[in-house]
């Protein structure tokens, strides 16, 4: 009864003496080689106006899901046209699989989900979502403030080792990348200044330009951008993964506030470390400028550094460090906020990390603009 193994799946529609339609199935049915179409059989059934159908599977060789799929498809066609199907002659296992595939009725509610809402609906829903996001973020800010206040008064529940780990992760471990970037920024600033200032024989003022530029703006800004890519994304991914694996729920049900336990140490760590990194970036940036000054402009290192130090007013230095602390807070808040509102799938964790970086960089640039206006008014 087994057909030769080399035979491809074949199907034919015939009529038995009693006038019923017979679908004769034969050959090897292998999913990886594809599935024969049911359309020719369906067209023939329509043309013959058959009212009943039975199978003849005597010539079927080894079979798999492709045959199950074929029979299920044919039966669905027959059901739609009120053609009675006699399944008895199918191999026993096949008949059982077909029965199993049709045992559970289709969940109609499941399929009937609306996917195309009118434009006005979608605009409205998006607007409502934006407002909800604003109120969510405000709530998050408030909760963070409360957690920080509790931490300051020593009432917050968190692990000191977590705080130290966060300090290491966003402080010491960021040294190499901050060194590289701020050195290059110093070099770039010096080159830009040198081209203009050399024309006036005022090459020594490159030192002023680099020193003021680094200390006032670029030190804090570049450290902020590095840290949002490095640490902000890590915070979002960590907390997002904790959300996916229900670790956040485990904390909350234990009566430990995730804000105190997770957000507060991260915010504190970044706010403490950012000014230090910024100060370091300032120094390295000035050294980068000095390299250009000494090698290209033939200035003496001593003169360059003396000019740099003279250019930096204490208020400028403090202003830059304050800015960096604020940037640190913005990065930590963006990272933690996006982590907490992460969806519950692995792709959502990636989205959260991306959004955290984008939000942090936008916030840093906006804050930088606001500081520029503020410092101008204060005359710093």
């Amino acid at each position, binding site marked *: 009864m087994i057909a030769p193994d080399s035979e491809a799946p074949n199907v034919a529609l015939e009529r038995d003496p009693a006038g019923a339609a017979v679908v004769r199935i034969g050959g090897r049915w292998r999913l990886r080689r*594809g599935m024969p179409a049911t359309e020719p059989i369906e067209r023939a059934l329509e043309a013959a106006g058959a009212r009943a159908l039975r199978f003849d599977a005597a010539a079927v060789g*080894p079979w798999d*899901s492709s045959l199950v*799929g074929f029979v299920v498809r044919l039966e669905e066609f027959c059901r739609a046209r009120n053609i009675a199907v006699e399944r008895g002659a199918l191999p026993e*296992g096949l008949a059982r*699989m077909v029965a*199993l595939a049709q045992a559970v009725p*289709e969940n109609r509610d*499941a399929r009937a989900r609306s996917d195309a809402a009118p434009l006005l609906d979608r605009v409205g829903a998006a607007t409502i979502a934006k407002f909800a996001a604003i109120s969510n973020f405000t709530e998050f800010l408030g909760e963070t403030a409360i957690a920080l206040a509790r931490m300051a008064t020593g009432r917050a529940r968190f692990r000191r080792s977590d705080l130290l780990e966060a300090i290491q992760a966003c402080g010491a471990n960021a040294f190499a990348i901050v060194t590289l970037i701020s050195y290059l920024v110093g070099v770039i600033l010096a080159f830009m200044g040198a081209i203009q200032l050399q024309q006036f024989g005022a090459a020594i003022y490159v030192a002023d330009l680099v020193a003021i530029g680094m200390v006032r703006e670029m030190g804090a800004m570049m450290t902020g951008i590095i840290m949002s890519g490095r640490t902000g994304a890590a915070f979002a991914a960590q907390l997002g993964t904790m959300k996916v694996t229900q670790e956040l729920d485990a904390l909350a049900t234990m009566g430990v506030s995730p804000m105190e336990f997770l957000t507060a140490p991260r915010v504190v760590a970044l706010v403490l470390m950012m000014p230090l990194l910024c100060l370091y970036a300032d120094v390295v940036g000035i050294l980068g400028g000095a390299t250009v000054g000494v090698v290209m402009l033939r200035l003496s290192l001593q003169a360059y550094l003396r000019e740099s130090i003279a250019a930096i007013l204490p208020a400028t230095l403090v202003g830059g460090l304050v800015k960096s602390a604020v940037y640190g807070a913005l990065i930590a808040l963006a990272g933690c906020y996006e982590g907490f509102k992460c969806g519950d*799938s692995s792709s959502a964790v990636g989205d959260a990390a991306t959004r955290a970086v984008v939000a942090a960089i936008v916030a840093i640039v906006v804050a930088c603009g606001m500081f520029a206006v503020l410092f101008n008014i204060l005359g710093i």
Partner: protein
Amino acid sequence: MANPLANPVKSSAGAAARPVHIKVRGLTMAFGSFVVMRDLNFTVRHGEIFIIMGGSGCGKSTLMRHLIGLIEPAAGEIYYDGANFTAAAPEERDTMLRRCGVLYQSGALWSSMTLAENVGLPLGEFTDLAPGEIREIASLKLALVGLKGFEDYYPNQVSGGMQKRAGLARAIALDPAALFLDEPSAGLDPVSSNLLDELILELRDSLGTTIVIVTHELASIFAIGDNSVFLDAEIHAMGAFGNPKELRDHSDNPRVRRFLTRGAINLETAPQDG
């Protein structure tokens, strides 16, 4: 697909007559210097429902991960249909693994794809089916596990039990000759768990699939297990090999009987027949 699908196995009777599918010889599993299990020897026959059982943390899932090549053995070999899997080249291994389906403990569905896309991915990669046919076969597989109509749902939009069933649909997408299930009924209610057992039996009876199950659900073990291996965490070696019911009643290892009777047998007393 080496198993004769045209002649599905109808019952567990005459098990010894069926050809050996998976053979484990002298398998030692270790993480560094910590030996999890030493010198495991057992065989799984075609069309058999084979249970890997043992207490929590004894290395059941680790054994399964060895069988599907996710962990390399510290010693010993694994054979599929007589071919050495452990010593096989990577491409040969991939070919052998394509005849295996795996259901991971938590479903491990790809969360950025719908259920139909999850089931359809192996079909798209390893068959010549057209996209419409892939969708159709994926729907069929989902229908087999009772998820008809949920094709366009994402894994996080359905319940844990449904994720597990969708994971099973993905595992059987390519009609594997061997199906590995890691704790399939963990986290399911008794009724769903029973339905899953029936589904497993149905798959074996109609397609002749060899099914290897890691579990410690006694009800399932007795309901569907043809043969089993008990991993004894105390001696870090195989505690018993055989039909679960017979082991419960006649095993000479008291820890095996204790496990299979939910601790109702006192280890200190003499063996008693149930």
